[in-house]
């Protein structure tokens, strides 16, 4: 089996193109992140010097800020809660979309696109009006609800694709052997679907965790999450402060990236979007 299927000129030209593309893409993608990293360890950095004067004093400043602790706690309480609620509510529905026949199945599955079809900020302005009337502004529940909106699409579509990809014969064999539907689900279907569900949960968590626009409107002043705090740190303080907090804010995502690498390559995301 041919290992090189690239239809262009083979060999050196392809390698050169590849290397150039790699260099350009790496510069574009990693450049901003590298700059931020330098700023995080900068005491001061004045043009036109290429390097900053290194110092750790802004770390002490950020870590000593009481709001940072509160925001971290709020983020790590609300995002997992939103993800968990989303998973509990959506995974059984995903199974239904994948396996069961019921009227309007296709239309209802497509309707979840509406969560992403409306421009997010317009949606948040409308949700805020509704939450005002329900007295849910500046409450934990309000923040979780806003984060929940972002998770729905991932938690429905990706598990649906995953369940659909499981061979029906396995389930039918279990049923023929006498297992009831619940037992079949928990002992056969779910274990096989678990990697896909984990990928979905991963994306849902990141979407909930990074949610900034809606929580800015709904969560101030008492329920600020890390991304919301980021706005005020970027706008109200010298550059190194925003850079330090960026590193703090990125850490959970980085950890999840390491954990998720294997699952990402296995194509569960692809299966979800193939409808």
């Amino acid at each position, binding site marked *: 089996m041919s290992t090189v299927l690239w239809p262009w000129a083979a060999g050196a030209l392809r390698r050169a193109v590849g290397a150039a593309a790699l260099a350009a893409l790496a510069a574009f993608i990693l450049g901003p992140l590298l700059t931020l990293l330098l700023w995080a360890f900068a005491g001061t950095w*004045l*043009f036109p010097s290429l390097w900053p004067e290194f110092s750790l004093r802004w770390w002490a400043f950020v870590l000593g800020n*009481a*709001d940072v602790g509160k925001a*971290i*706690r709020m983020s*790590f309480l609300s995002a997992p809660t939103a993800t968990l609620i989303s998973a509990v509510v959506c995974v059984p529905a995903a199974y239904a979309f994948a396996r069961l026949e019921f009227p309007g199945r296709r239309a209802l599955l497509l309707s979840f696109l509406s969560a992403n079809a409306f421009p997010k900020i317009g949606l948040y302005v409308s949700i805020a009006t509704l939450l*005002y009337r329900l*007295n849910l*502004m*500046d409450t934990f529940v309000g923040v979780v609800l806003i984060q929940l909106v972002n998770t729905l699409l991932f938690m429905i579509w990706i598990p649906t694709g995953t369940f659909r990809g499981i061979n029906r014969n396995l389930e039918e064999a279990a049923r023929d052997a006498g297992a009831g539907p619940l037992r079949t689900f928990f002992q056969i279907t779910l274990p096989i679907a678990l990697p896909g569900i984990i990928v979905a949960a991963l994306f849902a968590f990141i979407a909930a965790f990074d949610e900034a626009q809606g929580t*800015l409107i709904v969560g*101030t*002043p*008492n329920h600020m999450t890390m991304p919301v705090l980021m706005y*005020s740190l970027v*706008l*109200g*303080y*010298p*550059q190194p402060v925003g850079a330090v907090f960026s590193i703090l804010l990125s*850490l*959970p995502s980085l*950890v999840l990236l*390491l*954990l998720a690498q294997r699952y990402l390559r296995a194509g569960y995301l692809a299966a979800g979007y193939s409808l």
Partner: protein
Amino acid sequence: MKGRWNVRGLAAMVLAAAVAAVFIPGSAPDRAAAAAPVTLNVYINGDTNIFDLWSKSLLPAFGKRYPQYRANMVALLHGNGSQGVFDKILAAKRAGRTTDVDLWETEPSFVQQGMADGLWVKLSADMLSNLSKIPPQKLAATGGYSIPYRGSSVIIAYNSQYVKTPPKTFDDLVAWIKANPGKFAYCDPNTGGSGQAFVAAAIYKFVNPDKYAGNAYDAKEEAAWDPAWKLLHDLQPAMYNNGFYPNGNVAVLQLLAQQNIYIAPVWSDMSLDFLKRGLLPKTVNLEQITPPLFGGDSTVTLPALSQHLEGALTLLNWLLTPEAQEMVINAVSGYPGVDWKYMPASVRAKFADVAKPYSPLPNAQYLADLKRLWHDRVAAGQ
């Protein structure tokens, strides 16, 4: 394979440890037994320097002076969330409950709204012994429903290394800007008061400021602002970066520090603070022009339905002592709420250049329209 597993396992452990560290301290039950201090909630609308003033200087000192109280600060950056706080207090009044808001530093418009609904305590000398220290005209402005505890105004900062003869009047400033394109900036009025002050100064050149400072609001009065929009729009090409208005008070100070611009409108307290911390070059001087840019006092209001009225009154009274007022001056370089004569002479000397009277602030509705019209008529040039 084994190497990969170790990295993932380590990452998982780090994540678990982080989660534990976040949850466990918060969930430990409060062990303080019988002599538990009363916790007061103080809601503060402002910028980061004000939050630091309260959380790092005022509230700890208050706790030390009155150990039976502990105060907790809730920060409303640039006033975000203020409407929600007001709604919360109003809802409590309607439902006949108490509210957790014990003291609220907020904009005058909310104080005005609340007065009609009877939401605030009308403070008098027998409730607050230190009330007499406040100049009577300042108290008259709010009828005793809110107490000024600090003030600041917008002033002009200029880099004396590049600006040998600083402009002394608003017209001089406009002429300087046109003669030195690209070396002046003011922030987008949506994002900071220093930008609003410059826009207001342009407006005040053509109208009487007091007409817009009171409680009355009539959108038709804004037609008188047209010449100001023309002035500011004509000034746009001479602005920093061909008409770029930075996002926030601090962004403008940073431009000044990086010597991208040489003159800018800035808040007195912020700029004095930056100078003190070495974040602005020593060559930057401050001055007030004629007519002066606007400024105002920040006031604190006491909700009538506060859960801890006595504690709130104690805090409010302590706020007006020379001890607390000096903290205001030292921590944020603000003007005191009490009369200057109660401040030490050394302090009065330090402020001689900037502690001059200032122009009034437009009321909240006019201010909202000012921002919108500036956007439409100046930034977008319509």
